[in-house]
C-alpha cells in the first residue's frame, strides 16, 4: 500500500544562520516497518523528524509520504497521515482535559461530534487511559502524559507514527508498558531515541546518524554488534549487550 511509504531523498537543511543540520539524507520506510533513528546529540535526529510532517522545509531534496510529495499544498493531507509525538508531552497537551486534547485533532479535521467522540474513546482505550478521560493534564504522571500524547495523535488515524524520545523520563515500569504498547501498533513507526535497549525490543531496522548524515542503515542487531561504527558516531552498545557487570 503506497500510502504508508515514507521516502526521503537527498534531504538537506541549513538553519538561517547557515549552520548545516542535514547534509544529504536518504532512506525509505515501508508499510508496517519500525525504524529507529539513533545518534549522538546534535546529529540531526530531531531536525530530520521535523521534515517528515512539513514543519521544516528542506533547503534541498524532497520528502514523499505515500502518494504525496510534501509541499505547501499537500502539507495538511500529510499531517493527517503522519502523527508526530514530541519529546515534552506538556507541549502537546495544551487543553484542559484529556478528552479535549485527544479530540483536538479530529475536531480540526472537521469530523462530526459523534465521530469525534468515537475516535477519542478508541484512542484512549488503545493506550489504556480511558479512565483518565476528564482529568486535567497537570494532574497526570509523566507516563500517563506520554500515553495521552500518543492518543492525541492516534485519534487522527495516522498511518505513520513518528516519535521523538518516547521513553525519556519514564520510570522502569512505565517504560516497559510503553514499549509493550508500541509493539502492538501496526502503524509504520519512525522513532528517534537514545534508548538503544528499546530499539532492540521494538525496531528491526536502525538508521545511525552522525553530523547530519546517515552513517549506517540496516538490521538493528547487526548495527549494534558493530562497536567501531557505534563509537565513531558517539554511541555505545545497548546496555544489555554490554555483558553482565557481575561476571566481569
Amino acid at each position, binding site marked *: 500500500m503506497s500510502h504508508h511509504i515514507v521516502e526521503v531523498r537527498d534531504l538537506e537543511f541549513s538553519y538561517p544562520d547557515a549552520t548545516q543540520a542535514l547534509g544529504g539524507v536518504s532512506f525509505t520506510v515501508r508499510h508496517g516497518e519500525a525504524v529507529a533513528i539513533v545518534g549522538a546529540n546534535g546529529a540531526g535526529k530531531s531536525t530530520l523528524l*521535523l521534515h517528515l*510532517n512539513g*514543519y521544516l522545509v528542506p533547503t534541498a531534496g524532497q520528502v514523499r509520504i505515500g502518494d504525496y510529495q510534501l509541499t505547501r499544498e499537500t502539507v*495538511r493531507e500529510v*499531517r*493527517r497521515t503522519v*502523527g*508526530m509525538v*514530541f519529546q*515534552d508531552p*506538556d*507541549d*502537546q497537551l*495544551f*487543553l*484542559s*482535559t484529556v478528552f*479535549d486534547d485527544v*479530540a*483536538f*485533532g479530529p*475536531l*480540526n*479535521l472537521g469530523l462530526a*461530534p459523534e465521530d*469525534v*467522540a468515537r475516535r477519542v474513546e478508541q484512542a484512549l482505550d488503545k493506550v489504556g487511559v480511558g479512565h483518565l478521560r476528564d482529568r*486535567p*493534564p*497537570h494532574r497526570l504522571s509523566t507516563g500517563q502524559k506520554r500515553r495521552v500524547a500518543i492518543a*492525541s*495523535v492516534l485519534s*487522527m488515524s495516522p498511518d505513520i507514527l513518528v516519535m521523538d524520545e518516547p521513553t525519556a523520563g519514564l520510570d522502569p515500569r512505565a517504560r516497559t508498558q510503553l514499549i509493550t504498547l508500541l509493539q502492538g501498533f501496526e502503524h509504520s513507526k519512525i522513532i528517534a531515541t537514545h534508548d538503544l535497549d528499546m530499539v532492540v525490543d521494538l525496531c528491526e531496522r536502525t538508521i545511525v546518524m552522525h553530523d547530519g548524515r546517515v552513517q549506517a542503515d540496516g538490521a538493528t542487531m547487526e548495527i549494534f554488534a558493530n562497536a567501531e561504527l557505534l563509537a565513531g558516531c558517539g554511541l555505545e552498545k545497548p546496555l544489555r549487550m554490554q555483558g553482565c557487570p557481575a561476571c566481569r
Partner: protein
Amino acid sequence: MSSKIDRAFYDIGHLDTLAEGSSALHRLDPRAKVLATAVFVVSVVSFGKYEIARLLPFFLYPVLVIALADLPVFFLLRKLLIVSPFVLFVGIFNPWFDRAVLVELGPVALSGGWVSFLSLLLRFALTVGAALLLIATTGFTAVCMALEKLGAPRIFAVQLLLLYRYLFILIEESIRMIRAHALRSFGTGLRYRVFLQILGNLLLRTMDRAQRIHMAMLCRAFTGEIRIMRQFRFGRREFFYLTGCCAFFIGLRLTDLPSLVGRFLLEMGP
C-alpha cells in the same frame, strides 16, 4: 517570598480539586451557577453604604452552598483573610473621616464611619466568598466554557483555558529557578540584577515553549481556531436553581426582611 508562589500553586490546585465533587450543586450546568453568582454580587453591592442588617441574610447563600457542596470552611475562610488587607486598608479611613454618630445601641455610640466600615467588610466577605464558591463548585474550565456560551468572545475563553493550563508549569519553573538561587545566596534575597536574569531566561524559555506548542498544534491540523466539544444541559433543575436564587437575592434586596423579623420578635413580648 517563595512561599507566596508555593501557596498560589497549592491554592489554585486545591480549589479546582474541590470542584470535582459530586454533590447536586456540583452537577448543575455551570451557566446557572455563573448567572446566580452575578445576580448575587450585584444585589450585595447595590446596598447603601450604611447597610448592615439587610446584608446579613445574604450569608445564607454561601452557608448553604458550603453545606450542600460539602466544602472545607476553614480553607475558604483563610483565603478570605489573606486578601482582606487591601479592603481593610481603604475601609479603615471611613471611621476616620466620618465621625458623626449615627447609631446608638444602648451605651455604645457608633459613628457613621464605623457603620460603613462594617458594611464594607460584610460586602467584601460576601462578594469575594461568592467568587471562591463559584470556582469551588464549578471548576475553572467549566466557568470558562459557560462564559463563552453566555457570550464572551471565543478567543478570550480559549485564552483563559491556555493560561490556566500553563499556569502550573510556569509557576513550577519559577519555583525551580528561585530555589536554585536561594540555595546559593545565603539569605540575601533576590537582587535586582539576578531577578532580571531569572526573568529574562524564563521569558526566553516561555517563548520557545510557545513555539513548540504551536508546532504540536499544527501537527494536529490546527487552522487558527481551537475547538472544544462540551455538552451542557440547562434543564429544569438549573431553571429552578437560578430562578430560586434570583428571587431570593432580589427579594432580599427589595424588602427589609431583617426588620420584619426583628419587629415581629420584639413585639411578641408581653
